[in-house]
Structures are given as C-alpha cells and as structure tokens.
C-alpha cells in the first residue's frame, strides 16, 4: 500500500461516514450541511488522488464554496432552528427503498474486480490547460448550453424567490 492508496481509503471512509451523518442527522440541518461539506472535500481529495486537478478545484470552489453555502444561507434565512422531523408516513415505501438501495449497492459491487489497473497518464492530464482546451474545442457546444442553462436557472430562481418583481 502506497501513500496515495492509504489516503484514498482514509478519504473514502471520511466521505462515507460524513454522508451517513448527513442523512442520519434529523435534528440539525446546518450540521447536516457541514457533513455534506466534509463529503465534498473528501471527494475533492480523491479527485486529486485520481489526478483530476481541475475537477478537484472546481469541486471545492463550486460545491463546497457556493452550493453548500447556498444551502446554509437558505437554512438561516428560513431560520429552521432545531426543527424536528419525525419519520414520515410511508413506512412501507421507505423499507422498500432501503431494500432497493441495498440491492443496488450489491448489484454495483458485483462488478468489483473486473477493472484493470489504470494506465500511466500522459503529461498534463486533468490539468486546467488540457481540460480548458478540450472544453473550448471539442465540447464548446456543451459550454454554450451550460451557459444557457445557467441563465435560465438565474431567471427561474429570481422569479421563484423574489417577493415582488419590479
């Protein structure tokens, strides 16, 4: 076991634990959000270990830096302090859901061990340079579509959340 592999298992465990903490924390929404941040940062670390540097940076900047902060902002805006959410009504459905989740994990894990060892990477793989060139040449339409989507989302969020549009 080399250092990266140890780090990977470390961060993987951290991610799983904090994800569980997020889902299981029924009393404190902010704490759940903070657990989510830990998951995100652990995933970013794993991305670094997988040599996807730009994705790692974007993961932190956008997910940890913006999206979860937005969650926190809304929680604080609505002042959802220690709201208690007892388990819902559809008990049967939830049991079924849990069973299915377990089934899905089992199915996916059946594929374990089938992948070869990852090959050595070419120089500059996953860096902002290579990825930027790919984005602005091969995937330019995707970028344009993303910009359109973001515009639509801005407008939609404004319309939804603003009390009075002037």
């Amino acid at each position, binding site marked *: 076991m080399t250092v990266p592999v140890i780090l990977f298992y470390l961060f993987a465990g951290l991610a799983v634990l904090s994800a569980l903490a997020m889902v299981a924390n029924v009393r404190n929404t902010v704490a759940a959000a903070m657990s989510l941040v830990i998951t995100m940062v652990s995933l970013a670390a794993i991305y670094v270990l997988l040599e996807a540097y730009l994705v790692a940076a974007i993961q932190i900047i956008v997910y940890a*830096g913006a999206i979860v902060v937005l969650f926190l902002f809304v929680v604080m805006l609505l002042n959802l302090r220690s709201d208690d959410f007892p388990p819902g009504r559809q008990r049967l459905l939830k049991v079924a859901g849990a069973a299915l989740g377990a089934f899905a994990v089992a199915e996916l894990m059946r594929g374990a061990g089938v992948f070869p060892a990852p090959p050595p990477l070419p120089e500059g793989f996953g860096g902002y340079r290579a990825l930027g060139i790919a984005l602005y040449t091969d995937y330019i339409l995707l970028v344009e579509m993303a910009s359109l989507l973001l515009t639509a989302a801005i407008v939609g969020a404004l319309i939804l959340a603003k009390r009075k549009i002037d």
Partner: protein
Amino acid sequence: MIVEVVVKSLFILLVVVAAIAPVITWIERKQSAVMQDRIGANRADIAGITVLGLLHPLADVIKLLSKEDVVPQGANRVMHLVAPLIAAAPAIIAYAVIPFGGVYTFGDHTLSLVAANPDWGLLYIFAIGSLATYGTVMAGWASNNNWSLLGGLRASAQMISYEVTMGLSVVGVFMVFGTLQLQDMAVAQDGTLRVFGFLDVIFGLALPWWLEIWKIPAWGIFYQPLGFLMFLTTMMAENKRPPFDLPEAESELIAGYFLEYSGMRFGLFFMSEFIEVVVIAGLITTLFLGGWSVPWLSTETIIGGVGSVFGQGFATGLCILVHFATFMIKVVAMIWLQMALRWTLPRFRYDQVMDLCWKIILPLSIANIFVTGLVILLVQGGS
C-alpha cells in the same frame, strides 16, 4: 526536499502569522489615529518603555489568552468551538502558494522561494477562499443569537457573491501571463515593458530610440488596471472589513457573527482578519505588482552585475535578500493601502454591496475579459 518545504512553511508561519499579523493591529491603530488626528496606542509598556506603542499587540495577546472562553446557552457546542479554527485556517494556508522570493540556481540545485508551487496555484487560492466562508457561517449559526445569525446570513450571501466576481476579475491576469502558477506570474513580471511597444507589436511600426527607451516594469497592474481595481475591491469585500463589514456591522449587529465569542476564540477571528489582510497584500503584490521583482532591475541584471565583481554565489544570496525586501516593502505598502481605504471610505448599505457586486463589477469584469482576449488576439496576430 521535505526539509526545504518545512523550512519554508516555518518561515511563513513565523514571519507572516506570528510576526506581521500582530504588528498590523498596531499599524491599524496608529494609522487610524494619524488619520483622525489622534495619538493612538502608546500606553502599554515594559518597565516604562513604550516603543511607540509597539507593545500593545503583546498585551492584547496576553489579555485574550487569559480570558474565559464562554459558550452561550443553547448554542451548538461543537460547531461553536470549531468555527474560529475553520475561519483562521484558510487564511494561513493560502500563504502556501504566494512566492516571497524568486527562482535561484545554486549549482545544479534550484531554489524557488515559495512553499508550494502547484500548477493550479490561483485555483488553490480560490478554493481556499471559498472554504473560509464556513467559519463565519458556522459561528453565526452556532451562537444561538439573532444578531449572529443575521451576521452569518449576510456573510454567506456576500462571500458567495464576491467569490464569483473575484474569480472573474483576475481571469484577465492569467490570460495575460498564460499560467495559474503564482511563481510563474512573478517571474513573468520580472522585466520591463515598452510604453509604446503596442505600436510595434500591433501596427508593426519600428520604434525610434527615443520611444524605445520609455519602459515601465512589466507588472500586472499595467496590463490589467481595471482588473487590479476590481480584484482589490472584491478581496476587501471577501475579508469583510469596512467598508464591506456588513456581516460584522458594529453599529447594527454589534459584532455580527462573532458576537458571542470571547477570549482567544474571538482573538482567532480577529487575527484571521488581519492575516487575510496580509494574504490580500501578498496576492495583489504577486499578481499585479511584480511580486518580489525589483522594478527595472531583473534578476539576471542583478546577478550578472554583482556576480561579475563578487562572484556568483554572493550575488545570488544578495539577490534573495533584495527580492525578499522588495516583496515585503510592496506587501507593507498594500497593507497600508487597505488600512487607508478602511479608514477613509464610509460603509456601504447592504443592497449597495450587492449592487456593486452583481451590477457593476460583474459586467465590468466580463467586459475586461473580453477586451483582454481581443488585445491578446491582436498582439498574437501581429507578432
């Protein structure tokens, strides 16, 4: 290799965190006193020696350390205790990628005076900066206090907003330098720029000597004047100091998110703000003011000139000292600029802060990117 990194990190921690940051509190007090026609801090003494009030920071630290650490009733204890650490940590580790000296060669060993120089240095700064929000927000939430909550709310909105514009305002810089590595940027600024060079590069006119000699340092501020202004503004807003101190807002929210903190935990919030001032100064220096480079005197000139008389090794050593001194002078100048601004400008109203971000700086930064791209195209097409 490891040793080198450790030495550099220790250097940063000692010089920047332990030495400069406390001194800044003194600078601020003196600065404000000068601007308000007062004398300022001058009381703390050791055996009657006041040293211009320079002992005040020491007194502050001792006082803060000796105070009781209070956790308010009904607060989320863990988050309340962790928040100051989360606030302070990003400010410190951001310093890892800021170069405080150039790249030097000793025989076959190359010394680059920066703790870590990843390929994606600027992205690292952004990522770290975006994490800094959590300390504030957690503190605001965990204090179980309405003022704190409001402060946290404002902080989250303000910091998300200004992160966007902060990123966009420096895109021009790394378009010009073609790299995200801060050390590379500093190296690229270690030279001169012909004032009338655009005539040559874009229009292809050969310059006569009396135009050729007009040279300015090849600093980012001359490539990106608008970017400099916007970056300075957004960084100050990120730091939540006046005139952007809405999350703290002493006059409305008393102290905002760290209202319920006392003792050294309060001190951490307080310190992290000042550390960030230094980080901002260092970043601006690196991105826009040539970093460690001496204007009009490139590294080769110094080493070549001095080395021919006193030998290569001595010249390089001298160069390191000169560069570090230059860097510190620039940083201090930038710190002073921030202080002056902080004590000069009136505070914004909350909606004005948001308008400034989304309606002025954001369009301007996008226009700046566009124009920069256009000019780069022109220059590349011309050469």
